[in-house]
């Protein structure tokens, strides 16, 4: 089982990895991407089982990555972990096929609630 974490902040990628562990999800290989373009390319090459992506990133935003994946027939389960959680963004994420949107700051409980259906 492989999880791709896309965020332009290395600090946040580490926090997401740590929070996955604190939420009780362990035994997964974690692959990281530092911008949207790298995320898209790595998802295509590494074929992760789940993507946790920031929204606001250089090169491509998270929603652009998701739309590009779907346009290319890649149906990987995809969720957002982002500092913004407006109704408009949630609607856009949902419309593009995202499974969930976790807002920063988040807790291990928030991860458990959002991810249990996919990793539990």
């Amino acid at each position, binding site marked *: 089982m492989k999880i791709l974490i896309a965020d332009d902040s290395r600090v946040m990628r580490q926090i997401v990895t740590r929070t996955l562990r604190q939420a009780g999800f362990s035994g997964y290989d974690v692959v990281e991407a530092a911008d949207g373009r790298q995320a898209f390319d790595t998802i295509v090459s590494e074929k992760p089982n789940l993507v946790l992506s920031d929204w606001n990133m250089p090169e491509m935003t998270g929603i652009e990555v998701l739309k590009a994946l779907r346009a290319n027939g890649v149906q990987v389960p995809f969720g957002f972990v982002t*500092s*913004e959680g407006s109704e*408009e963004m949630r609607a856009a994420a949902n419309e593009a096929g995202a499974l969930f949107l976790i807002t920063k700051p988040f807790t291990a409980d928030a991860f458990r609630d959002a991810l249990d259906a996919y990793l539990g």
Partner: protein
Amino acid sequence: MNERHGPTDADLLTIAEQVWTSYLDVDGMSPLVPVPAEKPSLDVSASVSMTGAWRGHVVVRCSAAAARNAAAALLGVELDDVTTEDVTDALGELANIIGGNVKSLLPEPCALSLPHVLIHGESGYPHVVEVCRLSGTWREESVTISVLESALVVERTE
């Protein structure tokens, strides 16, 4: 005519408390303690900007020691292991998280920029008014969060 969209000092405190509880004060032993408004420390300045229905900036300013403490806490490493790159990344992400939450209190649509971090100096923000501010101390070091709105879209009544 003087109606102004935007968050309040209380909103900033709520957002900051959520950030501290989640990442910087997980054990509840070192909260951010609000203090009366004071001149912000200018050692490290991290900001995100917004454009669209609302235009302005969210700025996190703190002492160099507070910035190193924040980086160590966020990364889960010892203080001695914190690099300048860690400080830049950590403070930028703090500004991004706080800015994203402030954005949820502002009129849509707005676009949030990527963070900008300056160490030992402060970026200039011309033609802005301070909408709200949280001054605090964390582990006895200064931390200030400000929301600055572009004065070009603020209608003044005085």
